[in-house]
């Protein structure tokens, strides 16, 4: 069984174990150093990329508006995308959940007798645990993004949606290569490490039966799939193998081609502080008559997996504005300290906290939504202005209370509801609205302060227990007023 840096067994990482996972991560100085360094770097890069505040405001206003407009027409745009892709020769498939998506990809693979799939970076493929499911059928999935490749070699999982191997330093990467690759000489030279990855993967691109990728923007108007990357592995996966399968969440569709340039600029600057990435790949069809390369078949798999639940009301729908830049995690004080694995979900950090409840239900994710100080940094840097802190509060409410009238229950509605807590709150509400009872209560607290236990469960884990004062605020003010009168 493989282990992550923080010593928690990867297979056991799950949002239900968030507290233990976070504790383990906090106690790992190497992990914390790796994340601190990476987050400082990425924050700095973003700041430089948005050096003009007026320009930043403009592009974020526009990006938010574009995403909201496209979501407001989502069902129509999905149908338009399907029609235009189909006319272009791209085969469109719909999957309600991970199981259906894997079945679609398995069927395509088996029809081609595929033994290997070479993959570009796709968080949606992580979401459906594609590699694991294909392995069961004897189909090898190979990650080709450098970070994903390193993580896969180690049996590890990505800890960041943009920089998957961010939790490892170069020593740890060299160790991973040494453990898993023949004839590798350990080195701390990053160029050499990258060249090792390049040379080991080159033959795989050459041989692979199928290439699989994610999608950054799917353009309804033209039936075009846009992919953002720096390495060229995305181009390799979508160009060299005879079959290309693209998989994406249903929310990634945009209405017009002209929606793409501002979103692309907002994405790359927010993610890595780059004005533009090395490659922007726009795919509109499989190989056409007479063309000499490119896949003969292109498939698009549209995945729901809980997204339609987030779509149900206008407030929650904002979750789907996300363009997956990762800026919210880069600026999150919680993520920076515990890293990506501790969340136990495919999408970590602030965006993970608000999207995972729709994918996995509130039963499993109820601890994640409370793991925030609501400091607001995530909302402040979000290029499409998702109000993440408000969304967290909304989800906390949904986890504690029944749905609002006329609203269907969320998956895992009331998962965090507690009779004792609810009773205590009702009691407090009664006391707070009945002055005599309230004063009786505070008076007894001052009299019985010696009885206050020093151990108050989680509260006193990192705090001292509160000590009631010997006089209540009411008593003090009363005394002062009497003093003034006399």
């Amino acid at each position, binding site marked *: 069984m493989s282990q992550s840096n923080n010593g928690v067994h990867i297979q056991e990482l799950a949002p239900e174990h968030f507290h233990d996972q976070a504790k383990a991560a906090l106690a790992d100085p190497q992990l914390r150093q790796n994340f601190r360094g990476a987050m400082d770097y990425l924050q700095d890069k973003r700041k430089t990329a948005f050096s003009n505040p007026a320009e930043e405001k403009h592009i974020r206003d526009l990006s938010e508006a574009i995403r909201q407009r496209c979501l407001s027409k989502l069902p129509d745009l999905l149908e338009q995308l399907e029609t235009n892709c189909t006319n272009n020769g791209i085969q469109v498939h719909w999957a309600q959940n991970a199981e259906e998506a894997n079945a679609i990809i398995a069927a395509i693979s088996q029809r081609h007798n595929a033994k290997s799939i070479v993959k570009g970076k796709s968080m949606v493929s992580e979401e459906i645990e594609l590699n694991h499911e294909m392995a069961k059928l004897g189909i090898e999935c190979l990650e080709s993004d450098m970070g994903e490749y390193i993580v896969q070699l180690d049996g590890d999982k990505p800890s960041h949606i943009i920089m998957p191997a961010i939790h490892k330093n170069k020593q740890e*990467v060299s160790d991973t290569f040494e453990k898993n690759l023949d004839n590798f000489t350990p080195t701390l030279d990053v160029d050499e490490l990258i060249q090792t990855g390049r040379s080991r993967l080159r033959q795989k691109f050459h041989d692979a039966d199928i290439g699989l990728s994610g999608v950054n923007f799917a353009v309804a108007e033209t039936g075009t799939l846009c992919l953002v990357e720096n390495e060229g592995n995305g181009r390799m996966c979508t160009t060299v193998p005879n079959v290309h399968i693209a998989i994406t969440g249903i929310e990634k569709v945009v209405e017009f081609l002209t929606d793409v340039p501002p979103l692309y600029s907002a994405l790359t600057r927010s993610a890595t502080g780059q004005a533009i990435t090395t490659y922007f790949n726009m795919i509109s069809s499989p190989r056409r008559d007479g063309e000499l390369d490119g896949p003969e078949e292109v498939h698009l798999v549209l995945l729901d997996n809980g997204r339609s639940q987030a779509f149900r009301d206008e407030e929650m*729908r904002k979750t789907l504005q996300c363009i997956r830049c990762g800026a919210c995690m880069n600026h999150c004080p919680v993520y920076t300290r515990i890293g990506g694995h501790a969340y136990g979900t495919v999408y970590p950090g602030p965006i993970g906290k608000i999207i995972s409840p729709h994918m996995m239900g509130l039963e499993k994710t109820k601890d994640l939504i409370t793991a925030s100080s609501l400091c607001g940094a995530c909302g402040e840097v979000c290029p499409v202005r998702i109000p993440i802190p408000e969304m967290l509060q909304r989800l906390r409410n949904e986890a504690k209370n029944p749905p609002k009238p006329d609203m269907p229950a969320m998956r895992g509605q009331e998962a965090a509801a507690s009779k004792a807590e609810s009773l205590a709150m009702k009691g407090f509400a009664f006391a707070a609205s009945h002055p005599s009872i309230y004063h009786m209560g505070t008076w007894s607290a001052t009299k019985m302060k010696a009885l206050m236990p020093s151990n108050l469960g989680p509260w006193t884990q990192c705090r001292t227990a509160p000590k009631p004062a010997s006089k209540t605020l009411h008593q003090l003010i009363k005394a002062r007023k009497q003093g003034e009168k006399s």
Partner: protein
Amino acid sequence: MSTSRNAILSRLRDANPEAKAMETITYQPWVSNDAQLTRQRFIDGLSASHAEIISTDRDALNNVIKNIVVSKQFSRIALGTAGEFHSDIVKATQSLETPAIETMTFDCDISDLKSALFNDVDAGITHCRAGIADTGTLVLWPDISEPRTLSLVPPCHIALIKRSTIVSNFAELMVTQTWQNNMPTNIVLVSGPSKTADIQQTLAYGAHGPSQLVVILIEDM
């Protein structure tokens, strides 16, 4: 999977979202009417992304290509079958006798060339459809005469671009050329050689695409 399709679409339609109108926010990316400024921004952007840029005119193009091939000690060059400067490329590569250059013309299905393209070719030469000054970007529009892998698989990509095709920004380019009416199989924007910062945020070039990008800027205005 039409059941899944209908189930997803009906869940979305049940939400009954109110369609939002086209936004009125105006956002202006970098723009200039000054040809000199535009040229300079294009060069600066590409240089910052680690591309080599060589400026030349049509007459000297032949020599420029020869010099690149000789100085980089390339021995096998892949090229397409047509394009405005195709004859210059052919002339340049054929005129090199010592050392002799082997050219591989991409004129048949990739399955027949795949191994050579992956293992033997040092550089692929292509034309560009346009350039974007804002970000220092080449716009490739691969087609029958210059297939997609020509600019991708060899370790060096030599790109020919006419100065007159450089526009201010990406949005302007797709609007003026009405891309939405005739999207080809593939368009690629290229801004530098392949790179990654996946290991400890350290930038390294030559991840999976070309490790070198040489841009020949043909001064045609």
